[in-house]
């Protein structure tokens, strides 16, 4: 009865939340929602791994039932980058919807939900000055000139947003797009096009180095701090990998959980709409830079599953990883299956001209819309006039006697859908994750036989079988010292084992792979066979000799 009330309350809560919420949550809202989730279920546990320089908690919400450390663990990450506001809401809604709609999943899977790994940067979405901030709250010398954060953005037109500024100039490198002259595109030098505008982000050259806003007041970006292809000394990356507390809280925690099997990250990278491709050259080098062949097959399978659940045609989804990001680290350095998706992107808008004619001809004509123009067309279609700030002339101290205008796409316009769209995105992604858990490795004992030999000896033969479409270890994880092997134990002391050891290790089992094991045992009584690792769960089989 109590549970029923709780469920009812929870459904009510969800409905209310959906009705009330008009916009993405603030860091405080996130905290409140996490507390509510933790209160709503005995299977949800909220903890703070520590606080950032900006005094924001790094929250971890664990969703798991009994024995949760010995079931495959899936890490769900939101806020891998500050501007990816959507990912935070998706991580929260995933937790809410899983508990409400799919609680049985926790019988065989544990989730580690990190709803927001960039809370300092995320806060800028709700700040009085709104811009797509990457860095945390430390100060940093992005342009490496010896001074920290000396050239930040300035809101020159006083609209509370950092957009762009364009300067009319014969030295310009941009021209208005033919299809929509509010948007600027690069002048095509190959076609002999001269530019008419210089384009910068909105601000002043505070340090007089002829670069604008190249050393903003923010710090390091979480998604540039990981060790795989770490972009050392680049802006927002810093002087060495894993330099920030956020990253250390995260990694240090993960190393304490040997049951982690896979990652699903909400962020700019995408290997779900289109899987990563195997590349032999990158695979053969000492420093591996290509997904391994067997893992590429898995990525393809999961990508198909994603596309079946999330029916969004990829458009401009070319980011399959950038240096220092989390998603690639989780695979290449942590050895786990790792998937990432922005979860939403502006779809391609068909122009009238494009609808006719065959596709090959279309390509030849290059009548694909410039990205920015496509954004405007989509906004028009969705009735989102507020996505664009009209160009407005201002007096700029760095460009006396020149025409300078501030305007352009608003921050978050291309990364963050209107909030009313979020629920359907959350539902399809929750479904995808639930479907994914059904593929996870599943160890079973089969063909367990005993055979009596002379003198009271018994031969035990058994198959340990991975009855699942996914392997127990990623191919890369099999190389890693941080992913346990499958441990097979027989509950007999060494003295009673004529052949075989009390424990032995199996490197891994592929999808639907079995391994036959035998022992010769002295004596009688009950014997238990156990096989597995924390990240595959354990299979046991009790037999009587």
């Amino acid at each position, binding site marked *: 009865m109590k549970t029923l009330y709780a469920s009812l309350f929870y459904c009510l809560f969800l409905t209310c939340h959906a009705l009330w919420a008009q916009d993405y949550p603030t860091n405080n809202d996130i905290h409140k929602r996490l507390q509510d989730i933790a209160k709503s279920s005995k299977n949800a546990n909220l903890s703070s791994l520590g606080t950032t320089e900006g005094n924001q908690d790094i929250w971890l919400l664990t969703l798991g039932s009994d024995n949760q450390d010995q079931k495959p663990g899936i890490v769900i990450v939101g806020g891998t980058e500050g501007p990816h506001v959507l990912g935070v809401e998706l991580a929260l809604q995933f937790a809410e919807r899983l508990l409400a709609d799919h609680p049985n999943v926790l019988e065989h899977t544990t989730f580690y939900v990190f709803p927001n790994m960039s809370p300092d940067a995320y806060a800028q979405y709700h700040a009085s000055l709104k811009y797509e901030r990457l860095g945390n709250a430390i100060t940093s010398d992005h342009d490496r000139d*010896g001074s920290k954060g000396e050239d930040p953005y300035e809101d020159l037109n006083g609209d509370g947003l950092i957009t762009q500024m364009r300067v009319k100039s014969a030295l310009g490198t941009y021209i208005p797009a033919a299809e929509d002259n509010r948007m600027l595109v690069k002048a095509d030098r190959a076609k002999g096009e001269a530019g008419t505008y210089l384009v910068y982000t909105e601000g002043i050259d505070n340090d*007089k180095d002829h670069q604008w806003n190249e050393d903003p007041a923010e710090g390091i970006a979480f998604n540039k701090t990981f060790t795989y292809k770490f972009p050392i000394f680049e802006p927002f990356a810093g002087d060495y990998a*894993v330099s920030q507390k956020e990253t250390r809280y995260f*990694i240090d925690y993960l190393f304490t959980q040997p049951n982690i099997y896979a990652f699903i990250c909400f962020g700019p990278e995408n290997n779900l709409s289109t899987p990563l491709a195997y590349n032999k050259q990158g695979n053969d080098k*000492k420093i591996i830079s290509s997904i391994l062949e067997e893992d590429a097959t898995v990525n393809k399978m999961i990508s198909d599953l994603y596309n079946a659940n999330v029916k969004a045609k990829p458009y401009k989804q070319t980011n399959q990883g950038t240096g220092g990001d989390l998603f690639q680290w989780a695979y290449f350095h942590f050895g786990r299956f790792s998937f990432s998706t922005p979860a939403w992107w502006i779809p391609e808008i068909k122009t009238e001209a494009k609808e006719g004619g065959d596709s090959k001809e279309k390509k030849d004509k290059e009548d694909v819309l410039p990205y920015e123009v496509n954004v405007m067309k989509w906004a028009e279609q969705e009735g989102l006039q507020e996505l664009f700030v009209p160009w407005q002339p201002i007096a700029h101290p760095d460009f006396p006697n020149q025409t300078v205008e501030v305007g352009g796409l608003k921050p978050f316009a291309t990364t963050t859908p209107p909030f009313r769209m979020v629920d359907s995105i959350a539902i399809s992604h929750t479904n995808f994750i639930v479907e994914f858990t059904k593929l996870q490795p599943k160890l079973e004992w089969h063909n367990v036989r005993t055979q009596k030999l002379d003198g009271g000896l018994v031969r035990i033969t058994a198959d340990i079988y991975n009855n699942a479409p996914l392997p127990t270890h990623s191919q890369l994880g099999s190389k890693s010292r941080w992913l346990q092997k499958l441990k097979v134990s027989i509950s007999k002391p060494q003295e009673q084992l004529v052949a075989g050891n009390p424990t032995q290790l199996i490197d891994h089992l592929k999808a639907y792979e079995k391994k036959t094991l035998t022992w010769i045992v002295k004596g009688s009584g009950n014997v238990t066979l156990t096989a597995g690792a924390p990240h595959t769960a354990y299979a046991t089989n009790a037999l009587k000799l």
Partner: protein
Amino acid sequence: MKTIIRNTLCIVLCLAALQYGQAQEKFFRAIGTPHKPKVQVSWNRYYTYEGLRDIMQQIAQAYPDLAKLHSIGKSYQGRDMLMLTISDFKTGDPDTKPAMYIDGNIHSNEIQGAEFSLYTAWYLTEMFGELDFINQLLKDKTFYIIPTINPDARNNFMNEPNTPHSPRSGMIVLDNDLDGQAGEDGYDDLNGDNHITIMIRKSPDGNYIKDPLNPKHLIKVAPEQRGEYEFLGYEGLDNDGDGDVNEDGIGYYDPNRDWGWNWQPDYIQRGAYKYPFSLPESRSIMEFVMAHPNIAGAQTYHNYGGMILRGPGAEEDLDTYKKSDVKIYDAIAHKGEEIITGYKYLVVYKDLYSVFGGELDWFYGGRGIFCYSNELMNSYLYFHKNEGRGNREEELKVDQYLTFGDAFVEWKEYQHPQYGTIEIGGFKKNFGRAHPGFLMEQDAHRNMAFTIYHAYHTPKLSVTDVAEKSLGNGLREITATIYNERLIPTHSSQDLKYNIERPDWVSIDKVNVVAGMVVDDQDFNKVTEQVEHPEKIKVSNIPGMETVKVRWIVSGNGNYRINVNSAKGGLAEWVP
């Protein structure tokens, strides 16, 4: 009256006795060594962490104007990471002088780096006031010396049973066989002698025999001959019943794979821990180095083999080490080969093995600091022949003629629960890699002399010339020449590539600056103007043994001062 006479007599006698005593001096000065050191240290034995700490405290107490002891952090087990800062504190802030960083013992079994580092601190403090060269050196430079950067496992190596090669890592215990348990099957000191030696067993499959002339020595028989003994590895048991012996002990990880330049995970670089500076010891050092941009040279001590090593640690990093810097590396290390007899100058990736995430690569790649690692102790020191690492025949000869049996545990029978009757014996953990006592002091001195040479060649800046020319209209052109008197530039090529350290500043004050510029070519008036803040000219680099010229156009009269401020080159001033 009588008393006065008696007293006077007494005083006279005493004075005479004193003079007699002085005449009967018990010591005669040996060149090159502190004659009557305030801090007495025996340099022919090794010190535990506590022993090192005592000596460091004594040095700091004896020489408060030259040595300061502080902790830069805690080790995994909570020991202080103790550092001595050595400089002439009366001649400027030590943290603004070009500095030499020295550490030892990153690999816990490679112990003598600690004594060698500490010898340097001892020598510099004891010789200050005795030698002009050392006086000037400590006036110009600072030495940051951390004798052991792996204090936990140093003590484990000395106090607990180990092989000459263990633990090597620090004291964090990991799951080496990936069975879900950590450290459940390490070595076992079966014969209780605090050394992990070798197990051998009589066996029909054996292909070794004991040398009839020296039974310590096992000789391999020819393929067609029948041997008597087989090797069973280091002393130990199968503690966890998985059929393997000693497969999961302390560690294992390698503290010298934990550094933030081209770090790679364990499956690529065995020994790597979780991420760069994931070990508390290397993290403390990194934080210290980042906070001390005046460090311009670095030395780390390992063992063994008699090598002066530079990076790159990995072939993949070949492009990181540019020609102009390699020239300086070569110049210093070739002098080192002369100074440290029997040592060879080598490059890690091609002469040793491939290392990602090593300390010396981080110093250079991550901070732009010239850094060497010396592999201390080599066979040359025994009989002045280079017989190579681990030459058993030579080592047995050493044990016979130089150490008289001190280095070897005689074979003795033992009943092993898994192997049955075996014999245990072999070389002790403190032989082979570690210097025997009688070889330590000389090698410590020579290695120190090399680091002093390196430290000496960190940049030293001076304003050698200031030329003034009238331009009319009350304008003057002032051209200052800044000279780097030493080999090492203020910015290595790696530093310049990534702008690791800020530029050097050359500034003029007490005068109105109209324009400022760096003179690229004085003869043809090629200049690069700095429009913003021309009174403080940013100079990207002052190369070793070269000059840089800076020019200002100033208006008005009055005296001015010129200041040079360089992170790695220190401070220099010119006053009229």
